[in-house]
């Protein structure tokens, strides 16, 4: 394996490194906003003392008021900038991660993709990448703020009253401890909960998917009630577990509340002169009020972090499934060389293909494809025809032997031509993005789609496929034929192009292809069609991964 194997954590870490500057700047701004908050509450305590104890009038305190107003504005700007910058970091990271995924799909090639559900893979590249957002936009920054800000606040509190500082310092490690205790249980519960939700959604979707069957058996009404009961059962079950899960947030709430209460009582009694040890006798309204207001601020970053904790779990879950794809081994296109002779398209020497799961599926075979030749390959399904064509197309690299490919632009056609979600024109551009409309019309006419085109409401701009006009198998195959015409490729690779067509369309498509190839193009096709085999210069038969020359005209 050439690529290093990734884990979810290491991948997230690498991604964060990409936007290190922005993320650190955001964390710095977050700390700066926190510092301004400290100034505001300490300033407030000072103002209060001036107003109530020293009986100053507000007009004598304008300077401090203006300073605090500036801090309020500054804090607003810092918060805004922190949020905006970490958002930007998250956007860039997601864009990068998505490109990495799409590149990976690309390098895994069509053969690997054929064994996957494209819907599930698209979910990976779209939804799962989006799921990384909270981790980078919120959690990552907050984690760094938590490491800094409480410490700064503690320093200020030490200066004001070291006993309160000692109290905060003692309670601080207790919180993570408690949260860890509750959290360990809660994490398992969370996982169970997550699984239960997934099961419940699956139950619901299963019934929706089978709606036709429910209608046929007259069971929609009972399934309807089922849906309600299943969700309600789940509610009763999950309430039992949530009682414990919610304890972790209650613990934080409890500590923040108790801190205020304890500090208030301590400061109050100290100011009354009831406490005579430690720094208590030197308490003033200013220092007392300041430590009271700083106590909740001390816990605030941790509370925010706990609110974002699920962002981390979500991102890890998504990353977990993304790295499994990233760890798949890619096709090594760099191993492909040009053939030595100029009129050779492909030269296979002693080539074989093996899969870990299925063993050897092809070879060893030797084959040279000359420029301008028309080759038909027949053989039972599963004998390796598709693998050979995939090799010629560069979708696979051989496990053993040497493969030389001249890779001109070529046309590819298999049983199910792919339709893009777009207009008829978009689907033709797939073969040649620069083609103009008149060339498209010519190609469509040549492929026998004139009649269809005349019926389409918006001509070339009509949406086709899932979101538009549905095409029959024959029409789709003719569209693929039009693509070949439009591309004017000199090499055509066909993998049983007519297997799903009716006899009439099959005949038309095969004849059209043979005529097209006869104009000096190279064609290799896997087919059972007698006319195609007859028209070919070479006919090869594939049996259990080995080639047999049936006929060869020169």
């Amino acid at each position, binding site marked *: 394996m050439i690529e290093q194997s990734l884990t979810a954590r290491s991948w997230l870490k690498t991604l964060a490194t990409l936007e290190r500057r922005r993320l650190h700047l955001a964390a710095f701004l977050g700390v700066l906003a926190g510092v301004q908050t400290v100034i505001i509450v300490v300033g407030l305590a000072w103002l209060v003392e001036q107003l109530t104890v020293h009986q100053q009038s507000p007009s004598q305190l304008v300077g401090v008021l203006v300073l605090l107003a500036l801090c309020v504005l500054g804090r607003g700007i810092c918060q805004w900038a922190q949020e905006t910058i970490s958002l930007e970091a998250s956007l860039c990271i997601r864009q990068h991660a998505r490109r990495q995924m799409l590149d990976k799909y690309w390098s895994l090639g069509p053969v690997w993709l054929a064994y996957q559900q494209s819907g599930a893979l698209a979910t990976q590249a779209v939804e799962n990448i989006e799921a990384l957002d909270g981790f980078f936009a919120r959690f990552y920054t907050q984690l760094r703020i938590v490491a800094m800000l409480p410490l700064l606040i503690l320093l200020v509190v030490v200066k004001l009253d070291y006993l309160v500082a000692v109290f905060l310092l003692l309670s601080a490690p207790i919180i993570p401890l408690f949260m860890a205790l509750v959290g360990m249980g809660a994490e398992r519960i969370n996982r169970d909960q997550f699984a239960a939700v997934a099961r419940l959604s699956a139950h619901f979707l299963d019934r929706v998917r089978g709606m036709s069957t429910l209608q046929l058996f007259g069971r929609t009404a009972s399934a309807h009630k089922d849906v309600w009961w299943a969700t309600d059962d789940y509610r009763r079950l999950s309430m039992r577990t949530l009682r414990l899960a919610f304890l972790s947030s209650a613990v934080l709430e409890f500590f923040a509340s108790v801190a205020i*209460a304890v500090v208030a009582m301590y400061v109050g009694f100290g100011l009354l002169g009831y406490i005579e040890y430690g720094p208590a006798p030197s308490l003033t309204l200013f220092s007392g009020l300041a430590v009271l207001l700083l106590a*909740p601020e001390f816990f605030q970053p941790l509370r925010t972090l706990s609110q974002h904790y699920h962002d981390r779990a979500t991102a890890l879950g998504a990353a977990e499934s993304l790295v499994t794809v990233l760890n798949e081994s890619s096709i090594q296109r760099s191993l492909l060389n040009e053939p030595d002779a100029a009129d050779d398209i492909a030269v296979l020497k002693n080539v074989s293909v093996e899969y870990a799961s299925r063993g050897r599926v092809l070879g060893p075979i030797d084959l040279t494809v000359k420029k301008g030749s028309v080759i038909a390959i027949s053989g039972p399904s599963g004998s390796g025809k598709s693998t050979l064509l995939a090799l010629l197309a560069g979708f696979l690299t051989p496990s053993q032997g040497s493969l030389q490919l001249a890779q001109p632009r070529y046309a590819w056609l298999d049983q199910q031509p792919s339709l893009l979600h777009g207009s008829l024109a978009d689907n033709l551009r797939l073969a040649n993005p620069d083609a103009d409309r008149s060339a498209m019309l010519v190609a469509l006419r040549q492929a026998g789609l004139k009649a269809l085109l005349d019926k389409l409401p918006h001509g070339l701009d009509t949406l086709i496929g899932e979101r538009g006009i549905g095409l029959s198998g024959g029409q789709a195959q003719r569209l693929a034929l039009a693509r070949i015409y439009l591309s004017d490729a000199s090499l055509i690779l066909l993998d049983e192009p007519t297997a799903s067509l009716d006899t009439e369309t099959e005949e038309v498509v095969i004849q059209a292809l043979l005529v097209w190839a006869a104009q000096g193009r190279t064609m290799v096709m896997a087919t059972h069609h007698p006319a195609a085999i007859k028209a070919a210069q070479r006919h090869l038969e594939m049996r259990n991964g080995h080639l047999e020359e049936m006929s060869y005209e020169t």
Partner: protein
Amino acid sequence: MKHDTSSSVSMLSQARRALLPWVTLIVKRRQQFMLGALLIWLTLAAGLALLGLSGWFITACALTGIAFLLGMPARLDVYVPGGGIRFFALLRTVARYVERLYNHNTVLRLLADLRYRVFGQLMQLDEAALRRQRVSDWLGRLTADIDALDNLYLRLLMPPLVSLLIIVGVSLFMAIWLPGVALWVGGVLLLLWLGLTYGMARLSFAHSHRQVADQEGLRRLVVDQLQASAELIAYRTAAWHRNQVEAHEDAALDNQRRLGRSVAVGNSIIGVITGLLLLGMVWVGGMMVASDVIAGPILVMLLLVLLGINEVFVPLPGAFARLGGSVAAAERLNALGPDRVLNKDQSLPAHGLGLTLDHVTYRYSASVEPALDSVSFKLAAGEQALITGRSGAGKSTLAALLTGRLAPFSGDVRVGGCLPVRVPECQRSQRIALLTQQVDLFDASLEDNLRLGNPDASDDALWDVLESMALDEWVKSLPRQLQTPVGERGQQLSGGQARRVALARLLLMNPSVVILDEPFAAIDYDTAEKVANALAKWLAGRTVIFFAHHGFIGGLTQQIKHHWHLSAGELSQRK
């Protein structure tokens, strides 16, 4: 922002139109909603009271302490406020815990209600609409959309209500000492509230409304890249397509960027407005203290309450910026309902049922060619017919018309003289049975799947039909026998087993009309021979249509009276 007033009116009416049916659902649980809101209010109010009372207490202590030092007579009851502080500290913790539990419970109840309602809508869809939904990957969105509406409760309804109540409460509390100032504070907070709810929604409505559509568009492009990868590599057009993906992604991320920036503005405005309000209060309150209108401790109490109030507004910007997203989810769910609902007022006659089709044409909305083109035939009660045709020729459309799950575009479909679309589902399903080409098994036990055919069937009856379908030995070999789960879409079973389970399910019924689409698909030849006898016996006397690709229906051909062929929607006579 070109059409300012019209866009704001349309945002509100669009939101109201989309959300109304769902809010009605929430309103049904009015009491739970009110109690839940009250609990959140209590949590927040306890927090403010804790802070305010502590401020009052400290200041009062300080002033009393100074008085002691100066030798002036002073008294302060420390026990009542001390108890109060402890009480509010505890109340905040307990109220938070109870609130989270209680509201979570309500949300889950609501989820059940929401799913019930959506399912009710889907139940009434016809085959064409269901088929449309099967091909789109929209099904995956369904639960996410329902969850989005579930969030409506905790994010869009509860927080604005609670924060409004807090604003009113705080203003009234201030008015005890400073009625004039309280009016100002209340006014400013109200404006902030309005800005964070309505203003935020207004600013970001279009952006959040687009978000899911953006994601779906991106998803479709990625699916295209994956499915067409062979062609894209061959034609050397990968870069061309990749540019499209990236352009779409850029637009989607840009939209997110704008949305996120609006939320950031909203979030920082909370701190700025409440902070400036606090400083204003210091100024005004300072004057009042200087002129002995209020006592120092009272001022400190009011200041600290104001200091804590920003917590009340924190959930608003994020929630309201995403209003557009909730509206879009509601719109997608609203669009699910059937276009029209026919009266189910016809009743099938008790005796055997004949079938008559008279120039029946059906065209799916998304295709150029009709699926069925002026098809006519007559099949008397108790007769059997074979209809051949390749896939896509119109067989499943014909089956959907006969089972009343599609209404013909033109022409007349009659079963026993009735229009099948007008017969109530419970009666129709008992008299007209269809074995679909694609077997639908549910993620439940084998037994449950069989009982779909007849909920009242005895265990013996289940074993009988399993025996007829040559499945009894296999089921007996399973550790859980009839209780064996079949997996999602019957994935735990082989294709042939699933097919025979579907046939067995049919055998539990007693219908007058039976339509079998490829009865022996995926069943090997020997097994087909075995089960054909039992099937033939069961079919005797019923009106039967067989659909078959190449005409292979095993040993069931003896009774066939008509042989028709379907090709591109047209029916012709064979033999």
